[in-house]
């Protein structure tokens, strides 16, 4: 039994990437280091902080999310679905005469169509946010438990650049600690 649990755990566990982490103790230093890291030509890296930091996205030059476009397309699909569904249910599959109005009376169905638009748009947005961010994570590798309280880190995966060079870079940016880990 214990074997089975370990096996399942190892199957669903989120696997990290190998790379280099630099740790700072001040958020302004982190923003500065992030800017310099980006200016040093490293494109893909992560910043880890206990709380949201103003200006970090600009320092890292994180491009604007493309989720709004997904929302837009999902909303349009929901709207189209609503139009088709109200027509099919009330005028084709089971026609009911209500109040002497036409079978498919748009004013009566606009609330339904509207709700379909919002429902499908919203659910798709949340779902795509989770998928794009790789969430939820199951027991992911932890660089340092203190990153949830008072420390800040940058993490560069091995694929983003030469490890030894990045270690040098982080040290020159004033990192309190530089280590090779998984994240």
């Amino acid at each position, binding site marked *: 039994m214990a074997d089975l649990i370990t096996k399942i755990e190892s199957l669903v566990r989120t696997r990290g990437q190998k790379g280099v982490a630099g740790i700072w103790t001040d958020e302004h230093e982190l923003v500065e280091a992030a800017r310099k890291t980006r200016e040093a030509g490293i494109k893909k890296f992560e910043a880890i902080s206990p709380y949201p930091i103003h200006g970090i996205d600009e320092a890292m030059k994180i491009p604007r999310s493309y989720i*709004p476009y997904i929302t837009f397309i999902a909303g349009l699909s929901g709207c189209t679905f609503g139009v088709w569904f109200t027509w099919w249910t009330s005028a084709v599959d089971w026609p009911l005469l209500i109040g002497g109005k036409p079978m498919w009376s748009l*004013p009566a169905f606009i609330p339904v169509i509207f709700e379909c638009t919002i429902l499908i748009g919203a659910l798709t947005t949340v779902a795509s946010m989770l998928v794009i961010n790789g969430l939820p994570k199951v027991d992911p590798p932890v660089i340092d438990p203190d990153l949830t309280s008072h420390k800040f880190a940058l993490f560069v995966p091995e694929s983003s650049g030469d490890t030894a060079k990045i270690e040098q870079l982080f040290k020159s940016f004033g990192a309190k600690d530089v280590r090779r880990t998984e994240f």
Partner: protein
Amino acid sequence: MANENAKPAQVGRYVVSTELKTVFSILMFLGVAGLVVGLIHDPQRVWMAYLLAFFYFTSLALGGVFFAALQHATKAGWSVNVRRLTEALTSFLPFAALAAAVFLIGAPKLYEWLDKAKVAADPILSGKAAYLGATSFVVRLVLFFGVWLYFAKVLVGKSIAQDSSGDENITHSLNRYSIAFLMFFAISYSLFAVDFLMSVEPHWYSTIYGVYLFAGLFQATMAFLILVILYLKKQNLLNGYVTEDHLHDLGKLLFAMTVFWAYIAFSQYMLIWYANLPEETKFIIPRCEGLWIPVSLLLLIGKFVVPFIALLPRWAKRTPVHLAAVSIWVLAMQYLDLYWLVYPAYFKHAPRFGLYEVTIFAGFLGLFLFTVSRFLSRNNLVPIKDPRIHESLHHHVTY
């Protein structure tokens, strides 16, 4: 965006140019000329045009008080730097009160419930006489304008006083005044709309009417505010104080109120359509017949669909030229909305629009722009000693 925020914050002094003053005078002259000529030839029509223009600009002036009060009531920080520009709109309010007094002369030409013989012969109108009567109409009018003017004076006066004293207690007291104003405004503006616009068809009623006009007021106020900001920014008077980020948020509010208006307008329409009662549908039917069809469709598409699509992308709210075009369009549609509410009551078969409507609107526009620009030239463009100003200076919209 980054460069704009990096500019040293510097607020300029607005000066109304002689050319502009001439334009305002010409507009006002056109209005008076239209009114005089019209009173001789077609008094009813002229008072209709007067009613629309009066209601239009009174709503904008009230929108200024409302928006300023909303910011105080919610203790908003982001909007501090644009608040003074909304306060400028309130400078029209005393003139609106005067215009309302002038309108009393023409009211009997428009409202059949002011005709004693008609009311006596009509059981519905005589049933409503306690509310829809000359005395109660004037009492409400005086009460509403009295309270509105009082609150406008307090909200704007204290805000300006803070520019020199920097007293934080002013901000705290404005919070309480604003909450009181908002509560009064919700009721009074609804009844104001009922008194002036809904009563052109006194047999018909709609309980959502006040909210409908409030949605239009908020939408038009945002559009006008955006235009004022873009105009002043073009003259480099708000450098560093009002940035693209403020415009972005005001654009979002304009977008939100576009949707809100459609929501309210549809709620009104759907309930009338569904219940199908003659006393309610008689408002919709003439507007769905003959040449009123294109007007109704233009209202639906122009006031909702066009601004909805035009403001949907992020860049749309951050591009001054685009935002200005949408705002002008929305302001035009606000006039169409009032037109659509009032004119079918008198011209059942086809819309009438001509020089009377244009000149009288021009007259009010001239007066409105004159008062607003005079206010702006006499006061700081930004409440420079508001305790929350730093929140607004560093306002940053990520999305």
